[in-house]
């Protein structure tokens, strides 16, 4: 029997899936790695720990679930979170930790670029919003703030490029991940000279650009031995988690969009055109030679509800957040839509699309003397979903959407899916496979092997199950609250900024006391 392995280098953990040739899941394993925050706004991961965790999980998984059942591994395909940056020296040794997508240290650099006439040209060429998440900004920060490391850097890699280099020896980056760096011209598919000049680097300092189906070479013999894989097993560079999640969600064709809500969240559409937004609010990532994945990301998905549960939930057993969240959801369901006038802006981690305001903060608005905890719970869920709705509305300016497919642990909670259908006023289906990212990797490998003619056919093979229908009456209620939500999000901009500068000076004082 033959199988395909997907390795997803996610935000907190590596996930390994095996699929048979029909796309059925054979097995799954994961291993987590930590994120370090040595300073506020910093978010780093240890590339060696990611590599070892991946190797450890993969080795055990292969021996327990694959080799023992005599599966023959045809291909191994990678995917990873976007926007990471890892500097290495000329021997390939990492210069410190990798900087992850969530790192905001380049706030000032992003602001400076956004204020310059170059900003629009760079966004139009690269399709990546000007934001601290973007490797363009992170490398610019290194150039300005860590000159010594910047000077010593032989190449700037992504975490996935490093892992693949360790396994095969090749320095490569696929067009999907490259298109999320803010350094690639997504129209010509070459590194953008303006962006490179701005960051102060040359093409030679970046990995080689390759298509997502590219095979960077064979596994190093030692890893072949320790993993028990043959020289015939093909290594595919694969794509980004965002692109694969969209491919695996089966939203191919006009009028469809996917809403992913894990810790963070995004609304995405597939198309053959780049969405050129004058205000620079969308990302446009390359899936393959034909398709782009466009959309808007949010920082404040399931992580916000988890925050709420940790603070206000009833923990009957230590650390049992799952049952605590179940209970909160059950309570929230007893409250009328609109939470009896309580509104929540979920911007606990600042926000990206559509307001692109790193200083935005959370707000409960409209509290009255009759509100109980359950109203807060429901308002929190509604607020997270209003935020997703605001991204969808912005996409609608360019792309008609009449059907939604959801995935991700938060969005697929039945209560949340129904709420989403009502707020969006559109039929919603839940992706049949819990892990769309790995399913996307399977579709790519299967196409490469010849199971499908092309990615179109592969994507259309995902049958979406029954839909969750919107309740139009409820939508009417939500629509009224949403218009207040939208106004508040913008109106508070000055106050968010004032508060952010207070908090910043607060942190400075706090640090002074502690040192």
């Amino acid at each position, binding site marked *: 029997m033959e199988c395909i392995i997907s390795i997803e280098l996610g935000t907190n953990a590596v996930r390994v899936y095996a699929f048979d040739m029909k796309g059925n899941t054979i097995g799954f394993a994961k*291993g*987590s790695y*930590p994120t370090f925050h040595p300073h506020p706004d910093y978010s780093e991961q240890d590339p060696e*720990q990611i590599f070892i965790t991946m190797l*450890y*999980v993969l080795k055990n998984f292969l021996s327990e679930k694959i080799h023992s059942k005599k599966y023959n591994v045809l291909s191994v395909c990678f995917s990873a979170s976007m926007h990471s940056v890892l500097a290495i020296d000329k*021997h390939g040794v990492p210069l410190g930790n990798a900087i992850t997508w969530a790192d905001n240290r380049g706030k000032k650099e992003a602001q400076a670029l956004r204020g310059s006439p170059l900003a629009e040209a760079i966004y139009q060429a690269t399709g990546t919003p000007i934001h601290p998440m973007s490797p363009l900004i992170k490398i610019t920060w290194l150039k300005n703030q860590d000159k010594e490391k910047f000077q010593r850097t032989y190449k700037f890699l992504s975490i996935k490029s490093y892992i693949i280099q360790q396994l095969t020896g090749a320095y490569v980056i696929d067009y999907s991940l490259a298109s999320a760096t803010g350094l690639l011209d997504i129209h010509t598919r070459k590194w953008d000279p303006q962006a490179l000049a701005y960051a102060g680097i040359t093409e030679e300092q970046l990995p080689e650009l390759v298509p997502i189906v590219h095979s960077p070479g064979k596994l190093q013999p030692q890893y072949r031995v320790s993993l028990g894989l043959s020289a015939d097993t093909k290594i595919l560079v694969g794509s980004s988690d965002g692109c694969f999640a969209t491919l695996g969600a089966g939203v191919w064709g006009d009028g469809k969009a996917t809403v992913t809500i894990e810790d963070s969240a995004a609304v995405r559409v597939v198309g053959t055109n780049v969405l050129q937004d004058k205000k620079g609010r969308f990302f446009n990532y390359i899936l393959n030679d034909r398709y782009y994945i466009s959309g808007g990301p949010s920082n404040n998905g399931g992580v916000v509800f988890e925050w709420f549960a*940790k603070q206000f939930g009833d923990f009957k057993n230590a650390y049992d957040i799952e049952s605590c969240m179940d209970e909160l959801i059950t309570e929230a369901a007893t409250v009328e839509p609109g939470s009896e006038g309580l509104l929540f802006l979920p911007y606990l981690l600042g926000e990206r699309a559509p307001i692109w305001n790193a200083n935005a903060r959370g707000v409960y608005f409209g509290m009255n003397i009759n509100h109980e905890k359950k109203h807060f719970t429901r308002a929190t869920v509604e607020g997270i979903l209003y935020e997703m709705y605001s991204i969808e509305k912005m996409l609608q300016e360019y792309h008609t959407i009449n059907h939604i497919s959801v995935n991700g642990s938060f969005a697929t909670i039945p209560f949340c899916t129904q709420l989403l259908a009502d707020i969006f006023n559109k039929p919603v289906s839940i992706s049949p496979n819990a892990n769309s990212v790995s399913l996307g990797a399977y579709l790519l490998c299967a196409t490469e092997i010849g199971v499908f003619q092309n990615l179109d056919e592969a994507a259309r093979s995902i049958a979406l199950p029954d839909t969750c229908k919107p309740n139009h009456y409820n939508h009417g209620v939500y629509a009224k609250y949403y218009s207040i939500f939208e106004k508040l999000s913008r109106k508070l901009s000055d106050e968010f900024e004032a508060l952010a500068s207070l908090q910043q000076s607060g942190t400075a004082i706090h640090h002074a006391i502690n040192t």
Partner: protein
Amino acid sequence: MNQFVLQQGQSRELQLFPHIIEFATRKNISIELNSLPGTSADFVRIYYIIDGKFEWCIHDQPYILYPGDMAMILPGQTFGNTKGILEIGKLSWLHIHIQKLENGKTQLGNWSNLSESETQMIGKILLMPKTVVLPRLGDAGRIFLSLQNELFNHEIGYCTRVNQLLDELFINVTRRLTKQSTSGRDFPKTFLQLEQKLRENLSHQWTVEEMAATVGMGTTLFNERVKSYSGFSPLNYLINIRISEAIKLLKKPDLNVTDIALDTGFYSSQHFSTTFKKLTGYTPSEFRKRNVSES
């Protein structure tokens, strides 16, 4: 509690308990110069505040203690008021001799009924560099009161009860110390704290019990939560960190492999080499040859 002072060698109440050096409750109504200068001692000193506000300096750190708070000063640590005075208020204290307080070799004394492994765990936790003041430890007040009753009333079995109460005090203090920094709500945060502890002391031969105690959890729940959160058993996760750290060190040309093995917690370079090769297919030296950084 009424005022009293029991001292070893002078008070008959302590005859059967040679490990108790001093046990007292005092209501201080006037400030006297030099009533609480900074001192260090070779026994453990435990203070429990009943009334008032006390500003103390313990092990060179300033603390303010309020009613219900408890301070534990270990042998060799300094303790006193910066102005040398005992402030107005009411407090109890217990000075107790511990046979040996040393990582891995702790002995409370023959009086204790704690098992060998429990004693070692308590020793390790007490020796961790943590705050020595435990706010709102009401249990300590209750134990002090019971101790006083047993010592003065001499009811049947009092000799056993006194020593049980001392064991209980040490158990409560260590449990509280391990739970101080965790809420029981945020496992990722707790796990990150553990990760930091492991990295700070990677060469230590950690046991699962120690890891669990470090974050204030029982072993069963700890195993289950670590596995579901990280995908690894606690010991496998630790090996994971060890090899990741070893890889970083191997890439620096100036360190020798045996030192790297011991620094990252392997028993020997042989143990390191076997574990490393099993996972990566390379021996540490082969791996190093392929990836050496400029020095």
